[in-house]
């Protein structure tokens, strides 16, 4: 059985997805990176391997997400693509009627306007936390509520509280005040969902021509309170949360790998599931390329540098690991 692996690694979560030769979904894994992307990749591979049939063979690997260069170096990537490209490929395949993609992840968010299966416009945010999942994560932690329970409890709201939260920093003080005033937790939770929907649309969605059907994907789409809040804010019921919405980037990367390997007709660069047991070593150095003087992590396996990551730009991630440090 020939399968294609996609990996989407961000700053908060990692998603691995397998598709078959026909491009159909086979399996996926969704994990928190918890600040250790390499260990998360290894854990994801271990989980997938344990669920694969014996005759499974990985014929190609695609990597996406903010740590895509690192993932490709560790795992052996055949194709490396931006998240927008990967999300679009997967959405066009899974929800062909989509006109707008709203993607809200742990620390970034995107909007992609599709017309006739092509990207007509897009917008992104990775800087302002107020339009991302970390906004909800942070407030849930403050309220002592597991993020997994957030959505269902928010749906029990009867009188949502308006959280004046254009910024996650100021939302917290407003939320504390609402707690002190005796508002129900459920009403505060749904108020936070509404605040995130508002923030997203007034930041990433600003000036974009949102048409339906809207496809809502990314980890935040697990939150049913957010789905309702988005429908309210967009004034439409035509918001689709596709199956495997959290892994759409990884599915897209796998589809791109399938496309690439079909055209290339060479062996995959995939290093095998054995790398999940490899011992990687990390050592830092300071990049001298610009005044930012970023600290770069150099990752080695068996004494050989295989990848570099960190810093405010992707310069070291993109460099072949054979190059030595000290730009």
């Amino acid at each position, binding site marked *: 059985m020939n399968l294609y692996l996609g990996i989407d690694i961000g700053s908060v979560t990692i998603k691995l997805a397998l598709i078959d030769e026909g491009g159909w979904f086979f399996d996926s894994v969704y994990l928190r990176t918890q600040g250790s992307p390499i260990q998360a990749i290894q854990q994801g591979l271990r989980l997938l391997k344990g669920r694969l049939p014996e005759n499974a063979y990985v014929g190609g690997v695609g990597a996406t997400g*903010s740590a895509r260069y690192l993932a490709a170096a560790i795992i052996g990537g055949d194709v490396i*693509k*931006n*998240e*927008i*490209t990967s999300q679009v490929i997967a959405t066009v395949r899974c929800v062909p009627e989509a006109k707008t993609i709203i993607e809200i992840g742990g620390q970034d968010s995107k909007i992609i306007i599709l017309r006739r299966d092509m*990207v007509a*416009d*897009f*917008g*992104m*945010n*990775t*800087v*302002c*936390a107020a339009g991302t999942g970390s906004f909800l994560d942070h407030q849930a932690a403050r309220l002592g509520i597991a993020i997994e329970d957030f959505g269902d409890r928010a749906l029990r709201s009867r009188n949502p509280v308006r959280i004046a939260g*254009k*910024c*996650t*920093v*100021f939302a917290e003080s407003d939320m504390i005040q609402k707690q002190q005033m005796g508002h129900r937790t459920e009403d505060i939770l749904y108020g936070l969902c509404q605040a995130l929907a508002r923030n997203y649309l*007034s*930041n*990433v969605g*600003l*000036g974009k021509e949102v048409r339906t059907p809207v496809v809502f994907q990314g980890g935040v789409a697990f939150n049913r309170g957010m789905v309702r809040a988005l429908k309210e804010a967009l004034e439409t019921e035509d918001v689709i949360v596709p199956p495997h919405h959290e892994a759409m980037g990884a599915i897209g990367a796998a589809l791109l790998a399938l496309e690439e390997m079909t055209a290339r007709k060479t062996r995959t660069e995939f290093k095998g599931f054995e790398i999940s047991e490899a011992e990687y070593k990390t050592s830092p150095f300071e990049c001298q*390329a*610009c*005044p*930012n003087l970023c600290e770069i992590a150099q990752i080695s396996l068996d004494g050989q540098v295989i990848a570099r990551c960190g810093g*405010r*730009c*992707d*310069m070291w991630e*993109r460099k072949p690991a054979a190059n030595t440090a000290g*730009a």
Partner: protein
Amino acid sequence: MPEMKRQATIRVTVIDDARSPKCEARCGLDLSSPDTFKSTTKVLRRLFGGRVKLEYATLDAIQAGPLAEIDARVKAGELSLPLLLVNGKPRVSGYFDLHLLQESIQVEIEMAAH
């Protein structure tokens, strides 16, 4: 790198206005000021070769010319400053950092290739 030089130039325009209200939280690294032009240009050259042309503009400067529509949309509240345009199209409305800047450019490159 030589392959990149044959490809079309990607024009990155940063529009800001010193008089406009700013987000007080100031999350991330602010690259919306012309003061960062030299260092940002240097980083973009390392990442994309000579393919990317970076320019800064104020709202006053774009009132007439090809970006006049952007000026009108900012004034209508459809877009907020600072604004990052790639090939004249708004990609980031609000603060951005180096990662977001390079991702916006990378998407443009991948879309052109795909």
